[in-house]
């Protein structure tokens, strides 16, 4: 209360004091109007310029990042496409090496078969023996007009001879046809063989053609990447996102498996490392040990798949010579089998511990022991043991989605970062524009309390203007 009273000129008359203070403040604000407008304008201008500069920098950085992402994406895509093309070429080379290296022999065989068929065909095409010459003589005799026994006898002899010759010719003709049929029959397998060879060749050529088409497709993609085609870039980005989500999903499933695995071995691990040991306040050593076992299994799986060249997360392993890689593969596999064995025995131990504890609880509660129902009560134990052995191998395959995640994560993060930077740049630019407009608003707001002096100023200006106008008019009229 006394604080604001000290501001009053005349504490007894508050209204008068406030009026005096208001007038003084108004006068001060009016006097400081031009510099204050300058300050407001400068500050807003400063903010506008700064935000503009920052926004521009963000846009440029986003663009640089996009270009870098594009380079990485295309390089990665090129690498992938080159690998696929290489594999396709390998397949083609395999087909050529396996199937088409027999092509000359096949061709020779085909030609032989064709020659044989042609020969057989030629043989089968023999013309039947022509009718004997005496047919014409017979015709001449038959045209004789004079009757008698001589022509009749002659004709009978001729008839007999003809009949004889006819029979002989017919039998020869039949034999000849039989032989030709035999030749044609013998040529049948050759035709079939030719047909088979031709269809085989067609099939191989079709496979080769399919491979060639695939290679063409990959080469087109590769060319698109080389020319930095936006369509290809978009396709690669989309593919990276799809890959990221799919591999993420698989990873989540694998994590579920790992969790089950962890639950399976956490309790029996306490038998090995002690149930009452803690690393931190809430972190049991046995839990950490179980986790380490699972992580080691995953690592061994990773090394195994690396050495099998299924994944390529470690260039060092990929560039190893085959003998060394083979050794690494064997070592990883042995470790994995050992760990799977350990886990299986831990699963058995878990079952034993649980059974023992349940028995103790029954003893403590003075409840009659449960009678064993038979072999099927052992099923959960067997199931646990099998799971304990199988899960590490299943977990080993997590390396594949992990590789996909790692590779696609860079693209995904890059795209998200670029979009975030662009979004932020837009917001900052918007704020800058707002400040540009707000400067005028602040000037007007400043002018509101000093509206009376401004009005007086305008009035005085108007008055002066009128006076000077009148003076000018007067001077104009006298001149």
């Amino acid at each position, binding site marked *: 209360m006394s604080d604001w009273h000290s501001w009053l000129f005349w504490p007894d008359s508050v209204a008068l004091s406030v009026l005096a203070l208001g007038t003084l403040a108004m006068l001060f604000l009016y006097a400081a109007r031009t510099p204050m407008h300058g300050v407001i304008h400068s500050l807003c201008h400063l903010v506008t310029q700064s935000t503009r500069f920052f926004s521009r920098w963000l846009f440029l950085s986003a663009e640089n990042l996009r270009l870098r992402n594009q380079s990485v994406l295309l390089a990665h895509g090129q690498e992938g496409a080159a690998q696929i093309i290489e594999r396709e070429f390998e397949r083609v080379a395999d087909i050529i090496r396996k199937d088409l290296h027999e092509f000359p022999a096949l061709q020779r065989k085909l030609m032989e078969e064709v020659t044989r068929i042609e020969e057989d065909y030629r043989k089968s095409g023999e013309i039947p023996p022509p009718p004997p010459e005496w047919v014409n003589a017979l015709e001449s005799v038959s045209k004789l007009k004079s009757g008698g026994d001589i022509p009749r006898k002659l004709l009978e002899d001729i008839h007999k001879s003809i009949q004889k010759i006819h029979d002989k010719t017919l039998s020869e003709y039949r034999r000849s046809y039989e032989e030709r049929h035999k030749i044609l029959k013998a040529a049948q397998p050759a035709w079939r063989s030719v047909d088979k060879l031709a269809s085989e060749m067609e099939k191989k050529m079709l496979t080769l053609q399919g491979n060639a088409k695939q290679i063409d497709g990959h080469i087109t993609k590769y060319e698109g990447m080389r020319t930095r085609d936006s369509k290809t870039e978009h396709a690669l980005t989309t593919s990276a996102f799809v890959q990221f989500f799919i591999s993420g999903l698989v990873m989540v499933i694998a994590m579920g498996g790992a969790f089950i695995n962890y639950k399976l071995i956490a309790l029996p691990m306490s038998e090995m490392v*002690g*149930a*009452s040991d*803690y*690393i931190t306040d809430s972190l049991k050593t046995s839990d950490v040990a179980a986790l380490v076992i699972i992580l080691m299994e995953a690592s061994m799986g990773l090394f195994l798949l690396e050495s099998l060249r299924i994944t390529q997360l470690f260039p060092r392993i990929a560039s190893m010579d085959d003998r060394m890689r083979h050794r690494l593969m064997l070592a990883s596999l042995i470790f994995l089998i050992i760990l799977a064995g350990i886990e299986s025995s831990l699963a058995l131990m878990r079952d034993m511990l649980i059974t023992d504890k349940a028995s*103790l609880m029954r003893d403590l*509660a003075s409840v009659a022991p449960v009678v064993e129902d038979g072999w099927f009560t052992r099923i959960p134990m067997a199931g646990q043991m099998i799971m304990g052995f199988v899960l590490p191998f299943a977990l080993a395959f997590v390396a594949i989605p992990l590789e996909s995640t790692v590779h696609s994560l860079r693209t995904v993060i890059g795209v998200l970062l670029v979009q975030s930077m662009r979004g932020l740049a837009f917001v900052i630019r918007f704020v800058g524009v707002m400040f540009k407009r707000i400067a005028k608003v602040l000037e007007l707001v400043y002018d509101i309390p000093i509206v009376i002096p401004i009005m007086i100023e305008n009035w005085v200006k108007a008055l002066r203007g009128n006076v000077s106008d009148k003076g000018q008019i007067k001077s104009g009229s006298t001149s």
Partner: protein
Amino acid sequence: MKRILLIASVLFGSLFVTACGDSRMHSHAVYMLVDTSGTYAQEMNKATRIINYLLASLNSGDSLAVAKVETRSFTEKDIIAKVTFDKRPSQATTQKRAFKAKIEEFAKQPLGSAFTDITGGLIQGAEYLNETQAGIKTIVIFSDMQEELGQGTVRDFPIKLDGIRIVALNVTKLRTDNADPRLYLDRLARWEARVRKAGAVEWVMVNDLENNMESILKTR
């Protein structure tokens, strides 16, 4: 491959080295005093149930001791059974069975003492619990909390129960309490004040053994 072997051995090594960390701070130690004087001698089956509950609830690394309250209880001879459970759960289960057998054997013996030296039992219990170096220390008193000291037994001095929880179980009302309930309430209030003054972190009373057994080990 040598490098991989080295990494694997380092991992295994670190696993077993870390397994050797101090675990006492996370363990629970319980000292149970069982009143064997007068009518309380007939309550032994109830005490056995509580001991069984403790056996079922305590884990590897925890400690449990059961002692009887007699004419003069500040002696280790009054400890019926004591155990610190092994780190391995399978061994701990075996120890629990052996402990249960000891308690059952004790319960079969004829009980009954002329006086009730609760303070002596508390001092003995505190000594035992401090030796265990457990993170949570609890003294469970299965008694009507009516202390009756024999001639020559001196217990009217300040005791030390720093960092120990005190749980009074099955505090039955005496005939005189029924006549004047203030006696019962005053007795409990006096004990609470005494143990709190001695440095006890908590005073819990559990009379409903059917539904409130969890309060014995539950810390606030």
